[in-house]
């Protein structure tokens, strides 16, 4: 057993963190968010140069052959910086699907930053059920509605799930320009889109029986989000401790009040518990036994979601009025953490799944 990073992983961590420290200060982030696309093409190119966009792909596919640990490292840094780029959609979700299906020629285009993708799976009535797909595919054409598609507005191609005549949920590649899209910002400053497909032609069949693959990449995405949440939580927890040390009331720093000290300690405990489970999720994201993997990922989502909620709420509380303002970075962490808890189902949803699957220990 070894929790240490390898030399290469350490270098990766340092270079991502340096890039973001230089170019992702909070004011810059707010400027990227206000730009028409809502994120930075320049940073996207910088990620490509660092090899981040080809992280999980094999070298012959233009990638660097990284695994879940590398993804964890990058996502944690993104969490700390509140990064806005479509990494989860393009690299983790769609990259994860394309590298396991016949479309390997697209991978170098993801890696070099020239191809943006979005995973168009959720639907207006699906809520968190992964197998609720009403969209139909027939004679090479897809018809249906996709809801809250992350970064669906800037994607060039979409990986769409649809049911065929045999009732199978498959995965299909379509040109995003051949759909009707309505893009919008999300509560945490990211982007998403509502997408309508009306006989949109299929460019490539990725999987006719796609459920196992969907579950797999969603599990990987949850592991990645867990790492992102840990990055955000750590930064927010540190921000709060700094504030407790500097904000004075009653003539003393408020951090001298024991009630607040204990609360800050509980925030640290929650963050560390989440960090541990994000590591567990990272370790289990590659597990071949789908049932075991799903339980582990659900467990991680529960812990991370609960910690995220606690740390987010307490951070606002301990900041007082300042925590409520849009000008302050803290509130943006809180909102991102809230939405990460929501994505792919909140903590209690996964708790229920885990309990139904028999729990973690025999």
């Amino acid at each position, binding site marked *: 057993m070894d929790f240490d990073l390898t030399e290469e992983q350490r270098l990766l961590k340092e270079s991502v963190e340096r890039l973001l420290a230089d170019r992702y200060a909070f004011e810059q982030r707010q400027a990227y968010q206000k730009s028409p696309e809502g994120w930075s093409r320049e940073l996207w190119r910088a990620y490509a140069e660092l090899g981040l966009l080809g992280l999980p792909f094999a070298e012959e596919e233009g990638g660097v052959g990284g695994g879940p640990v590398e993804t964890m490292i990058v996502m944690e840094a993104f969490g700390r910086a509140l990064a806005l780029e479509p990494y989860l959609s393009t690299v983790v979700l769609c990259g994860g699907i394309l590298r396991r299906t016949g479309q390997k020629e697209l991978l170098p285009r993801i890696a070099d930053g020239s191809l943006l993708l979005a995973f168009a799976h959720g639907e207006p009535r699906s*809520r968190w059920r992964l197998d609720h797909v009403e969209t139909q595919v027939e004679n090479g054409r897809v018809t249906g509605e996709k809801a809250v598609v992350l970064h669906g507005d800037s994607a060039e191609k979409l990986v769409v799930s649809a049911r065929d005549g045999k009732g199978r949920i498959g995965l299909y590649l379509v040109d995003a320009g051949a759909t009707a899209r309505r893009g*919008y910002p999300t509560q945490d400053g990211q982007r998403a889109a509502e997408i309508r497909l009306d006989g949109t032609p299929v460019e490539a069949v990725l999987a006719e029986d796609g459920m196992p693959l969907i579950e797999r990449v969603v599990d990987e995405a949850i592991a990645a989000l867990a790492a992102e949440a840990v990055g955000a939580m750590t930064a927010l927890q540190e921000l709060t401790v700094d504030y407790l040390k500097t904000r004075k009331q009653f003539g003393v720093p408020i951090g001298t009040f024991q009630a607040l000290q204990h609360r800050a300690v509980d925030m640290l405990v929650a963050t560390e518990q989440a960090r541990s489970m994000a590591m567990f999720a990272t370790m289990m994201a590659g597990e071949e036994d789908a049932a075991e993997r799903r339980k582990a990922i659900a467990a991680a989502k529960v812990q991370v979601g609960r910690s995220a909620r606690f740390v987010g709420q307490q951070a606002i*509380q301990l900041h*007082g009025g300042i*925590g409520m303002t849009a*000008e302050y970075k803290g509130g943006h962490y809180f*909102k991102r953490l809230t939405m990460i808890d929501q994505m792919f189902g909140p903590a209690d949803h996964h708790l229920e799944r885990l309990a139904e699957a028999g729990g973690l220990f025999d």
Partner: protein
Amino acid sequence: MDLRFTPEEIAFRDEVRAFFRDNVPAKTREKLIAGRPLDKDDIVTWQRILNKRGWAVPNWPVEWGGQNWSPVQRYIFDEEMQLAPAPQPLPFGVSMVGPVIIAFGNEQQKKRFLPRIANLDDWWCQGFSEPGAGSDLASLKTRAERKGDRYIVNGQKTWTTLAQYADWIFCLCRTDPAAKKQEGISFLLIDMKTPGITVRPIVTIDGGREVNEVFFDDVEVPVENLVGEENKGWTYAKFLLGNERTGIARVGLSKQRLRRVKALAREVGLMDDPRFREKVAAVEVELKALEMTQLRVVAAERHRKDKKPDPFSSILKIKGSEIQQATTELALEVAGPYAMPYVPPQEGRNEPPIGPEWAAPLAPTYFNWRKVSIYGGSNEIQRNIIAKAILGL
């Protein structure tokens, strides 16, 4: 002990309920149910409807338009108003500065300000907090210097709710910088149109605009706008802050929110999920307990001799705010994936909604409602009060 309302109280409740049912403007009621922000007009219109009925300021003395209601009747009135739902009267005039003027102001101030508060001809805001004076309010620095028949006010207030609409602000200002910090403060009434006042909006995390910074740069205030005595402002401020005893729990509001959560959860099929039903029921149990606690406080009111703030109100504040926040978390869960899209509150009324229309305000409300455990004395400060005043620690 009989925990039921008397027949007279029930008759009163029915009367109030019918009035609210028939008189809250439909567009205002819809906004309240949906959790969308009210505009100035909604609040002013409603206040005038209440005033016409004689119910604008029921907690004031009869000579100033009040009702001689028992504590139970006042409780019923507040509860029914929240349940209806009807807008809460703007507290800054009716529950804050009004009672201070009644208790400590002079006749001329009463005649000048009270009727206009009751009818919301003047919109008041509360200038207490400053950047350096939040929980430690008495450390405030905004200075008022007496020059002949005027005060010259310099300094800054912050978190001033709805100052953008305000005609008047009541301010705590330091008039004697040499005195102990609680002893050099005065309570001034300041016309917002006076030269030298600047209002700057603060956008909150939900994207809303409800708070502001208010800057004072050599603002001249006639001495006749001093309430009570100079340097006695802290006493009046304590009176003001302790005045609201039963309203703060907002039991009716939480009931109305839970009703809404259940209706929406039914719509999306979530009420079929026993786990979700249990979570709702658990909040309902807490709320029922709070309601009974509140009724105990209301009933005890009859026996109170002094007008000192009741430390029990801190219990109501803590629990009430926690329960309100819990209802917003349940609503967020009901929204599901459609909690995510951000729809600016003012815009988009003409565009079709993203997902179900009711979903858009739910995440912003969750974010925004973190405020209720911060303002009006944070929940930590309330715990300090209980520890000291009830437990003697």
